[in-house]
C-alpha cells in the first residue's frame, strides 16, 4: 500500500453548492457566459458526434442584439412562420396567466406556468412534424397549444370537470393528448425519458419515419431514468431528441445541485458519445434550428441528440411555490437572455413584418380567446363544485376489463353512498 504521507495533507472538506443570489441580494448575471449570436458553428447532420463536442459547451444563438437573425443556425423561416410562432408563444403566456389566476380564485387545485420558457416548446414543435411523438414534462403546454389542441379541452382537464376526458383522474395540467402526439404526463420526474426512447426504437424497428422527442428539467436529469434513456438511445441509435430545459431552478434548488457547477447539461451527451447541443432557450429561432437539425439526424439514422435549452424559470415552480423565499426577486428581470416573446417580436418588427400595435391587438385578441374558452370550460364545472364525474367512474380504466374485486368495490361504494343519504349531493 502507498507510503504517501497523509498526515501532511489538510483535511478533506465537503463542497455544498450555493447559488449566487438569495432573497434581498442584488443580482448581477455578468458571470453567465453569453457568446455572440451566430458565433457557433453548425456541423453537417451527417457528422459524427465526436467531431463537434464543442457544441455542448457553446450556445447556439440566432437572434442578435439588434434583433437580426444571424449565423449558420438561422433557420430562415418565413414571416408567416415567425408570426405563427410569436402568436403561439403569446397564447401560451395568456393561457398561463389566466389559469394561474383561476387556481388563485379557487377554481382548481394546482397550476404550473412556463413563463419565460415559451420558446422552448414553441420553437421545437414548429420544427417537428405534427405526427412526431412528444414525451413532455409538465412545462411544455406550448406543444399542445401550438399543435392546435382546443383550449377548452385543456381547461376541462385543469378543472377536472364534466368535459375532462381524463375523468378528473389526473392532477391539473397532467394532460394526455394522443391525437396531438402528446404522451400522458407523469407526476414522477423523468420517467418519460426511457419511454420516449422505447417509442423511437419501436418506430425504427418498424421502418416508420416518425421520431420521438422528450423533455425534462435540468433538475430532473439526476434521476436514473435519464441515464437509462441515454444509454439505450446510444446503444440502439434511437431516433429521439432529448430536451433538457435548464431553467436554472428545480423548485428551490439551483442548477448547481444537478451538477451545473462542473459542466453544462449538454455535456451529458458527450459522455455517451451522442450529439449534444447547447442552445439559447429564449431564442425561438435557435430552438427551432437546433430541433430541426436534431430531427434530421434522427430521421437519417444518425441517432439521438440532446439539446440543453439554457433559459430561466421566470415565475414560481407552481401555484404551491413562493420563489421569494429562496431566490432574489431581481433574477427574472436581470436574466441576460431576455424575454423570448419580446425577442421574437422585436425580430419581426426589425424585419418590418410586425409592429407594436398589431402585437397589442393580438395580445388582446388572445386574452379574449382564452377568456372565452375559460367561460366555456367553466360551464362544464370547476373543481370542488359538485360532482362532475359519475362516482363509479373512479373504477374505470384500472384494467381494460374490470376484475371482480373492482366490480365489488364499485358496487359497495354505490351502496354505501345510497345508504348514507348521498353526502355527495350536499354540495
Amino acid at each position, binding site marked *: 500500500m502507498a507510503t504517501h504521507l497523509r498526515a501532511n495533507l489538510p483535511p478533506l472538506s465537503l463542497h455544498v453548492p450555493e447559488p449566487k443570489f438569495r432573497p434581498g441580494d442584488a443580482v448581477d448575471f455578468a458571470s453567465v457566459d453569453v457568446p455572440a449570436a451566430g458565433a457557433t458553428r453548425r456541423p453537417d447532420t451527417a457528422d459524427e458526434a465526436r467531431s463537434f463536442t464543442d457544441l455542448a459547451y457553446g450556445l447556439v444563438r440566432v437572434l442578435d442584439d439588434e434583433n437580426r437573425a444571424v449565423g449558420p443556425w438561422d433557420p430562415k423561416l418565413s414571416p408567416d412562420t415567425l408570426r405563427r410562432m410569436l402568436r403561439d408563444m403569446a397564447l401560451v403566456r395568456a393561457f398561463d396567466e389566466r389559469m394561474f389566476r383561476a387556481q388563485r380564485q379557487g377554481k382548481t387545485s394546482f397550476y404550473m406556468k412556463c413563463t419565460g420558457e415559451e420558446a422552448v416548446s414553441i420553437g421545437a414543435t414548429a420544427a417537428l412534424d405534427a405526427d412526431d411523438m412528444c414525451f413532455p414534462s409538465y412545462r411544455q403546454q406550448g406543444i399542445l397549444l401550438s399543435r392546435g389542441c382546443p383550449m377548452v379541452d385543456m381547461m376541462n382537464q385543469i378543472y377536472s370537470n364534466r368535459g375532462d376526458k381524463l375523468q378528473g383522474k389526473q392532477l*391539473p395540467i397532467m394532460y394526455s393528448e394522443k391525437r396531438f402526439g402528446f404522451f400522458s404526463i407523469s407526476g414522477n420526474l423523468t420517467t418519460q425519458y426511457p419511454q420516449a426512447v422505447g417509442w423511437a426504437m419501436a418506430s425504427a424497428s418498424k421502418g416508420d419515419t416518425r421520431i420521438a422527442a422528450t423533455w425534462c428539467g435540468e433538475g430532473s436529469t439526476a*434521476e436514473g431514468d435519464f441515464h437509462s434513456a441515454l444509454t439505450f438511445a446510444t446503444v440502439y441509435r434511437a431516433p429521439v431528441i432529448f430536451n433538457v430545459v435548464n431553467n436554472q431552478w428545480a423548485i*428551490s434548488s439551483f442548477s448547481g445541485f444537478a451538477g451545473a457547477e462542473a459542466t453544462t447539461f449538454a455535456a451529458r451527451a458527450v459522455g455517451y458519445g451522442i450529439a449534444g447541443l447547447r442552445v439559447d432557450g429564449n431564442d425561438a429561432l435557435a430552438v427551432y434550428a437546433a430541433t430541426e437539425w436534431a430531427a434530421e439526424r434522427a430521421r437519417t439514422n444518425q441517432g439521438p441528440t440532446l439539446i440543453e435549452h439554457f433559459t430561466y424559470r421566470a415565475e414560481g415552480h407552481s401555484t404551491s411555490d413562493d420563489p421569494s423565499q429562496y431566490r432574489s426577486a431581481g433574477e427574472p428581470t436581470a436574466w441576460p437572455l431576455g424575454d423570448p416573446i419580446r425577442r421574437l417580436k422585436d425580430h419581426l418588427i426589425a424585419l418590418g413584418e410586425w409592429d407594436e400595435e398589431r402585437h397589442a391587438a393580438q395580445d388582446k385578441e388572445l386574452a379574449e380567446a382564452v377568456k372565452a374558452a375559460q367561460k366555456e370550460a367553466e360551464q362544464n364545472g370547476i373543481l370542488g363544485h359538485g360532482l362532475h364525474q359519475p*362516482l363509479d367512474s373512479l373504477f374505470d380504466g384500472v384494467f381494460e376489463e374490470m376484475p371482480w374485486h373492482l366490480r365489488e368495490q364499485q358496487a359497495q*361504494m354505490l351502496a354505501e353512498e345510497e345508504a348514507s343519504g348521498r353526502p355527495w349531493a350536499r354540495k
Partner: protein
Amino acid sequence: MSDSMTDTNDTSRMNMIQAINSAMDVVMARDPGVIVMGEDVGFFGGVFRATAGLQAKYGKTRVFDTPITECGIIGVAVGMGAYGLRPVPEIQFADYIYPALDQLVSEAARLRYRSGGEFTAPITVRSPFGGGIFGGQTHSQSPEGLFTHMSGIKTVIPSTPYDAKGLLIAAIEDNDPVIFFEPKRIYNGPFNGYWDKPAENWSKHPGGEVPGGYYRVELGKANVVREGEALTVLCYGTMVHVCQAVIAEAGIDAEIVDLRSLVPLDIETIEASVKKTGRCMIVHEATRTSGFGAELSALVQERCFYHLEAPIERVTGYDTPYPHSLEWAYFPGPVRIGEALKKIMKDA
C-alpha cells in the same frame, strides 16, 4: 428506555411540522453524526417546511439540498451510515420513493444481515404520505404496506405532533433503517374525515402539546387512544382521527388502537384488545389488496380466532390509483367506516 423519556418539561403548542422539525433539531444538537438531506430541504427548508431553520443552525454540511435522484439520496445515505453517520434523508413525497426502492430493500434493509453485522444502515427516511390534499395520483399514495413486506426495515407512522416528535427521535436513534411516513393531511390539524367542514388545527388537541426538549416514544408500542368493549379498531396516521370521530358520532364503545409502528408491531396490545372485544375493524387509506390491513387481519384471525364474533372488516382505499377530483370518494371516510361499523356490529 421508557415509553417517553423527557429531559425538559417545558411544552408548547406545535403542529406536526413543527414537532418533526423540533425532533431533528433536538437530535442534531445532541449527535453531530445526524445529518439531514433531500430535495429542497436545505436553504428553503423543505416543500412542507419540515426542515426550516436547520441549515441556518447546523450548517450546510449537515443540512443540504440534493440532486433529484431518490436512488442516489438513499444510496448515499447508506454509505454515510456505513461511515458512521446517522442520515435522515427526506423523500419529498412517498409517491417518489419507488426509484429508491432497490437501495432501501436490497441495501439498507439487508446490510446488517448480509455483512454479519459489520455494516449497518442507521438511516431514517422521512416522507409525507397519504391523500386528502387534492394531490392527485402522485402526491397522495400510501405505500407503507410495501415496506412491511421487506425484512430488515421498520415502518413508523405518527398521528399527533407529540408522537411525531417522540417517534422520530426514537427512529433516528435506532440503529436499523426506519421508514417514517408523515400523514401530510394532518400536518396542520387533526382531520376527522369531514372534508366539507372547516379545518381544525392542533391547538386544541392534546397531541398538540409537545415538550421542547428530548424525549422518545418507543418504536413498536401502540397507543390505545380510546378504551372500549364493543369492538377493536386498528388504525394509524390520519385514520386515527377519522375513526375517533366516527366512533364518537356512532356512540359505540370501541377500543381504538393507534398502531404508530407497523414493523415492529405491538401484537400484544392488538391481541389483548380483540380478545376482549371479539370484533375488529381495520382502517387504512392505502389500496386494499395486500395492504397492511391484510396482514393485520391475518394476524388477528390467527391469534384471536376463537374470540371473534364477526368477520374482521377492512375499510381501505380502493384498488385504484388515487384520483384527483373524486378524492373524497376514494378516501375511506366517515360514510364507509360507518357502514362497516354497522355491518360488524349487526349481531352485537
